[in-house]
């Protein structure tokens, strides 16, 4: 078993004190994996992943990245610590050019490294090259998502964290985004993503967690979870057909 990159233990988080949205959720992400967090609407998936990225106040539990405690780290230090986050919406700077969107994210890189790194991103996302001078707000939905991912990858993160990368995209772009994520994993990047589109996410994922009411309730191999009756119960609210329990 390969080493753990991200280790989240009993995480509690919420915007208001005394009103936790995330209530003791634990997950681990190992090097080179794609881990998917699923769950019904309102399960706290988005708050969970935002809390890890330092965007929702954490009231309990711990987050370790590569053995280092990043629980209390402010959001702007996350890229330096090795965690790059792609928000669900508004994940680009609309009035800045594509190139400036990439460049503004390079704050932690060595100055001489930046031009080469930008070219590497263009090589990985050829659609963006032609648009390098275009204001990012004029890109199509799929291209925006590419730019947001490229912007996150440009700083060599240890783990790439995505909040519903397929949300709001047309079906054609949805499959494109998931193919892109599978390709990124092949290049050795560890990925954690929250998804509403369970089927597509499980198809590219290695392992998955099901989050319900702010807690991780089930864990399993991604390819097996789609047919798991416990998941059906937790996720779709159906009665279990075979057996009860099994909650992690």
């Amino acid at each position, binding site marked *: 078993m390969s080493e753990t990159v991200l280790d989240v233990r009993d995480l509690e988080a919420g915007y208001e004190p005394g009103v936790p949205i995330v209530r003791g959720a634990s997950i681990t992400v190992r090097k080179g994996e794609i881990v998917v967090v699923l769950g019904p609407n309102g399960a706290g998936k988005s708050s969970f992943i935002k809390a890890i990225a330092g965007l929702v106040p954490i009231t309990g539990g711990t987050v370790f990245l590569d053995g280092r405690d990043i629980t209390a780290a*402010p*959001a*702007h230090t*996350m890229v330096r610590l090795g965690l790059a986050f792609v*928000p669900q919406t508004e994940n680009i*700077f609309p009035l*800045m050019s594509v190139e400036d969107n990439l460049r*503004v994210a390079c*704050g932690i890189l060595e100055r001489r490294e930046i031009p080469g790194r930008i070219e590497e991103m263009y090589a990985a996302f050829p659609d963006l090259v032609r648009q390098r001078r275009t204001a990012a*707000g004029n890109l199509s939905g799929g291209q925006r998502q590419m730019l947001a991912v490229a912007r996150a990858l440009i700083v060599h993160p240890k783990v790439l964290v995505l909040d519903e990368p397929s949300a709001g995209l047309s079906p054609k772009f949805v499959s494109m985004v998931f193919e892109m994520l599978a390709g990124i994993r092949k290049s050795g990047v560890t990925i954690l993503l929250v998804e509403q589109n369970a089927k597509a996410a499980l198809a590219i994922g290695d392992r998955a967690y099901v989050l319900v009411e702010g807690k991780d309730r089930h864990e399993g191999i991604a390819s097996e979870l789609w047919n798991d009756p416990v998941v059906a119960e937790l996720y779709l609210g159906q009665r279990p057909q075979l057996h009860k329990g099994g909650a992690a």
Partner: protein
Amino acid sequence: MSLQFVVDGLLTGSMIGLGAIGVTLTYSILRFSNFAHGDFMAWGTYATLAVVSAIGAMFGKVAPIGPLSFGWPLLVALVVGMAFTALLALLLDKVLFSRLRSQGQAIIVVMASFGASMALRSLLEFTFTSRPTYFSRAIQIAMPVGFGIRITPDQIALLLLTATLVLGVHLLMTRTQTGRSMQALSQNAALARIVGIDVASVVRVTWIIGGALACVAGVMIGVLVQIRPFMGFDMLLPMFAAAILGGIGSIPGAVLGGLIIGLAEAGAVQLIGAEWRAAVSFIILMAVLFVRPIGLFGVRER
């Protein structure tokens, strides 16, 4: 109609434009209208005046540079004044604005800036009285440059200084990581943090630029007109009108807005009389808000 209004308008416009840069930056990055910005101008000017006097006391009378009305002491004092005004802005942010900003209601910060404006202005009146004062009482002869236009050496020097500063700020905003971070923060504060931008340090840079330019605008008024505790407060309406006309957040817009308002004011003085001067920015502001609220270079908020 004499074309002299062009020179007068460009000069007034430069003062307004330099001030409007600070207003537009504060508005787009910190998300509030800073009504104390005019008083930064006045404080910067009095600080510069104090340093000029101190240099005068130490080195005696210094000959002016070429045909200008001022010598090196004013240039040195201006740099000190800019630093002082930047520090004043940072201090005010630390003790007042940043605390209120963290409560998340913009209107509270705006009201606080009203209060700060009054306090700063009254302190100046208390210390220096409300009597006008001058950097130099020497009278400059305006040179004819054709088309019935006359211009003094001081005016040429200050127009060049404005152009240099505006170009410098524009390059800073578009070509440096600091400038890109400022743009990023004004477009999406949450995403700016996600991509690793330290919001606190960008906020500091914003105050430093705004404060320093306010000081330059104030000193321009001091050199060309006079120094009074109300000198900055009186510029508030034209500055806001310029920032809004140019489109909030746009540096070139703020400067162009300033020049347009300056020229309109100077033209109005000739056409309809000096008593209507102050009405010009008000009318332009109303017109922009009715016709194109996002301004010349503005972009609709998504």
